[in-house]
């Protein structure tokens, strides 16, 4: 899905937990996330702490969209 969208010239940032899979599916901008069942949250924290984590990950993803990349790049 990442590739089909990226093909049209729209940059895609892939937020996912298993980075090796993201690489094989051909994502160019990759932001690793928390865990498979809750990539953008962490139920063991309070809702406020969780949201903070989510906000930081989304900030990282947005920033990745503003950076030119040559090939597959993981934004740790």
């Amino acid at each position: 899905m990442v590739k089909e969208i990226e093909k049209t010239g729209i940059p895609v940032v892939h937020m996912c937990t298993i980075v090796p899979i993201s690489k094989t599916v051909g994502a160019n901008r990759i932001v690793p996330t928390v865990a498979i069942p809750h990539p953008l949250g962490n139920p063991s924290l309070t809702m406020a702490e969780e949201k903070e984590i989510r906000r930081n990950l989304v900030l990282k993803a947005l920033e990745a969209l503003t950076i030119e990349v040559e090939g597959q790049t993981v934004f740790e």
Partner: protein
Amino acid sequence: MKKLRVVHYINQFYAGIGGEEKADYPPEIREGLIGPGQALQAAFKEEAEIVATVICGDSYYNENMEESKSQILEMIRPYQPDIFVAGPAFNAGRYGVACGDITSHVQNELHIPGVTGMYVENPGVDLYKKEVYIIETKNSAADMRKAAPKMAKLVIKLGHHQEVGSPEEEHYIKRGLRKNYFADKRGSERAVDMLLAKLRKEKFDTEYPMPSFDRVSPSPAIKDLSQSKIAIVTSGGIVPKGNPDHIESSSASKYGTYDISQFDDLTDQDHETAHGGYDPVFANEDSDRVIPVDVLKEMEKEGMIGSLHPYFYTTTGNGTAVANAKAFATEIAIDLKNHGVDAVILTST
């Protein structure tokens, strides 16, 4: 010949421990065979014996690859197997990655050969086919009856350090290796024969297939976030509560497009996941954990991003045929273009 000692790797599901709610099950080893080990053992006949079975939850392995691998290698070591078998994983993505990864580490670090099995679209195939023998299976466990004898045959060969035949003979997925052999005809003759066959529009097999690099070059970065329209796409299966379009929990045949303009925060009252490939408890409690609508709405209000596209696009990514996913995304991309979307956040579980 001596009876080979086999250690088998399976996931929590095949071990009968549980489904997705137990996918975080840490590694353990048990004496003897469990579950799919029975079919393999039957195919081994008297030539090999499963002496122990490693069990690990699929999410646990994938989220803690380094640690899982080290723990499992130490569990296997005392059993001194001649050969290692993992799966088969069929079309289960995380299970396939786990099977490929652990088999490659058993080979490299314990110097024990290994075999696994997967459906050709399993993401574990592309990741590990170069290092590991992966018997090609169909996409569901119904193929176990046919897969077990193929895996068993290769296990016995590798266990006795016998020569392994071609991918076609042994039913494993091509590893991209070239093997020298003496041909009956010299190269120039073979080339002319091939050319003549081509001219006659007859079937011919190239001796040097070109690798297919299915890569897309990165799109240019967006210049100014505060002027950009951002859209959310997910393979994590988030849908309005009740799953109005009945998106399948696996092997999806469709995607959904849903309006989020009225939501500043997704809750258990209005959204849930349709995905059957991970424990849904956390996503059902708060779907923002999969698609970050709450923080993107805040950022839109703060002016950090120009706007959030009022619709999100969703499907379930487990077991979904690559051809289907491709078709969904082609349509989604057209819609994104038509709505002037500048960039996409795609989340996966």
